[in-house]
């Protein structure tokens, strides 16, 4: 069963794949950890699962692309998914969210879905943050979630392609899964690569000989938009790390920035000066959950943090797009987090 609504999706968002395209080398190298590798373990959720969403729609250019996992064998992947479903979630329905621009897997999934009643396919627009759990369950299932809530409490399980394969290997075949693919990219690296890493390898070992010799760099895991910065490179890899982005630290002034936009993007530079809010409406145009981040800024600036809560603050999914787009370079996400923290203290 194929479900393709033209207007499926949400207002706002930002198509990062088109604006900041990244190309990955096809080299897939295996890096082994020095110690004993950690092992992937799948724990069946306690709650009853009614919906399984398989996310085949990475929306960030630095995220692990689909072709690495599917290897042009989409039908085989779906067969594995079916086995997992019949064994662990016999009553659940499967939903597959797939980037509608990737023609080959879309047509393969469509062909498969014609005679499979147990799954539904959603060909969606791959704009960030489509793959966020809140947005995904809203778009696919029309279920409202809160940010940070465990989706299994509402009977929804969200899996990515690699986890599906790992569950199959681990639980159905009984093999030990101790390595995963991660995407390495960014302006601080010599090349963008996809590598196969044993769990428990330190980031230092992964990045050795891959970073450009000249200049400073900063390391982020799970993308610079909603991921976190890693200052201690001895940190070990675990299953939750999908990608590592190394960005050039551009902390000096660059001459004639208007002619050099290709050099400046995807660095840690602010790309502009801090100004006051000019009411440009960029932040609420881009907001995927229909909030008005500038209202929080104005409340914050007047010293009325508690008032921000009135403007649906709890709906924010902290995707970071408002800070990303702001031409005045305001730290909107930081303000939102501070206002939220105030709420929790009470």
């Amino acid at each position, binding site marked *: 069963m194929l479900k393709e609504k033209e207007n499926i999706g949400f207002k706002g968002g930002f198509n990062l794949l088109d604006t900041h395209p990244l190309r990955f080398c096809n080299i897939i190298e295996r890096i082994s950890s020095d110690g004993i590798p950690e092992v992937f373990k799948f724990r069946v959720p306690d709650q009853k699962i009614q919906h399984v969403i398989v996310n085949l729609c990475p929306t960030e250019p630095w995220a692990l692309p689909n072709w690495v996992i599917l290897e042009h064998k989409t039908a085989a992947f779906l067969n594995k998914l079916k086995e997992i479903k019949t064994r662990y979630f016999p009553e659940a329905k499967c939903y597959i969210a797939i980037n509608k621009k990737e023609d080959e897997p879309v047509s393969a999934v469509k062909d498969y879905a014609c005679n499979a009643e147990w799954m539904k396919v959603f060909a969606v627009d791959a704009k960030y943050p489509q793959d966020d759990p809140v947005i995904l369950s809203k778009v696919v299932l029309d279920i409202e979630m809160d940010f940070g809530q465990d989706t299994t409490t509402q009977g929804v399980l969200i899996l990515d392609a690699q986890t599906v394969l790992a569950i199959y290997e681990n639980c159905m075949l009984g093999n030990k899964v101790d390595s995963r693919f991660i995407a390495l990219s960014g302006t601080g690296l010599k090349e963008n690569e996809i590598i196969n890493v044993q769990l428990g390898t330190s980031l230092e070992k992964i990045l050795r000989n891959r970073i450009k010799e000249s200049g400073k760099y*900063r390391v*982020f895991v799970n993308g*610079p*938009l*909603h991921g*976190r*910065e890693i200052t201690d490179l001895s940190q070990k890899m675990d299953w939750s790390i999908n990608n590592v982005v190394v*960005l050039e*630290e*551009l*902390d*000096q*002034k*660059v*001459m*004639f*920035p208007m*002619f*050099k*936009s290709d050099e*400046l*993007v*995807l*660095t*840690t*530079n*602010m*790309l*502009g*000066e*801090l*100004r*006051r*809010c*000019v*009411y*440009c*409406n*960029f932040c*609420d*145009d881009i907001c995927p959950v229909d909030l*008005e981040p*500038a*209202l929080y800024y*104005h409340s914050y600036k007047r010293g009325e943090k508690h008032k921000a809560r*009135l*403007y*649906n603050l709890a709906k924010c999914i*902290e995707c*970071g*797009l408002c*800070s*990303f*787009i*702001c*031409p*005045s*370079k305001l730290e909107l*996400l*930081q303000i939102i987090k501070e206002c939220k923290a105030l709420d929790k203290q009470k």
Partner: protein
Amino acid sequence: MKKLIKPIEPIIGKSLDRVESFIHTHPKVNFLFGAIFGAFDGLLRSAKETTQTQPFIRNNYDVKRFMGAVLVALVIGWVLPATYFFGWQCVVSKLLVSFIIGVFVVDVLWAIIAREDHISEGGFVSCLLIPAILPPQSPLWLVGLGAALAILFRNVLGGVGNNLVNPALFSRLFLTICFPSLLVTGYQMPFVGMPDLHSFRYGLDAVTHATPLTAFKTNGEVTSYLSLLVGTSGGSLGETCRLALILSGLWLIKIKVVNWRLPVSYLGSVLLLSVFFSLLMGKTVAPPIFHLLSGGLILAAFFMATDPITTTYNQAAKWIYGAGCGLITVLIRDFTTLPEGVMYSILLMNLLAIPIQSLMVKIKYRI
């Protein structure tokens, strides 16, 4: 272009670094020239700040580009057509006076007195609008005074980001009150009488001609729509060539600098209300298309009413704001002795923007 500037880059970069360190080590020099250097440096070089909090990458689009786009649109929209219709002597001299007095004297002095870090690029937009909304024959001192008042007024209210009403329009209101004769009579037909030294001081009062709106008010004469559209009729310096203004306004909408809701609601409400009144009252009020194409309506709808800071923030409130502007414009034009009401309508709605905003926010979030 990249190759051309490559060899001179390190030289300029090093000398700018040297000047910067000199300024920062000498507090008195910094006090006087820090703001000017900051603005100049900001034009040539990018900022050196890096992101410290999530998200760690930022979009390559800042307020400077935002204002730069408005400047480009204004140059295409009114400077070039006005140069053709009224002569470069008229346009260039006014622009020079407006920029020098507005930005380089008043804004710089203010930055020194008020200890601002840099002069804001928003001043260029205001100073580019001042000559556009004054009559072609206004003397240069009037333009200079207008620019000075606009910048001073904006800065007193807290600078870009805090101004309550549109500074350029406020300064025009001030001039209208103080020098009514100059602002009512200084209109001429295009291609007539190039200004000379005498006219710079006293205005060129030999060839004045009523604007289309005044002509309609006095003897019911409707100027041809084509001449209004192309710009071969009288009016303020920047408002005559509506075609160029519409095209550059549409470009601004396309690159999202101008919010499309404002021009649509403003022009739409003017059209609807003028249709309504002309059906109701016949020939005593102006016909709808004449309403749209005459006076400063097009210039105001694309460049003044859309000034982001003085409008409401909420998107739904923008519709009300634009419709309110249209209502006041039509009411003043049709039912008062004043020929033109665009300036008053925008200034009034600027003042009403904050109540409308808070009302709409209350409705939206039910608080």
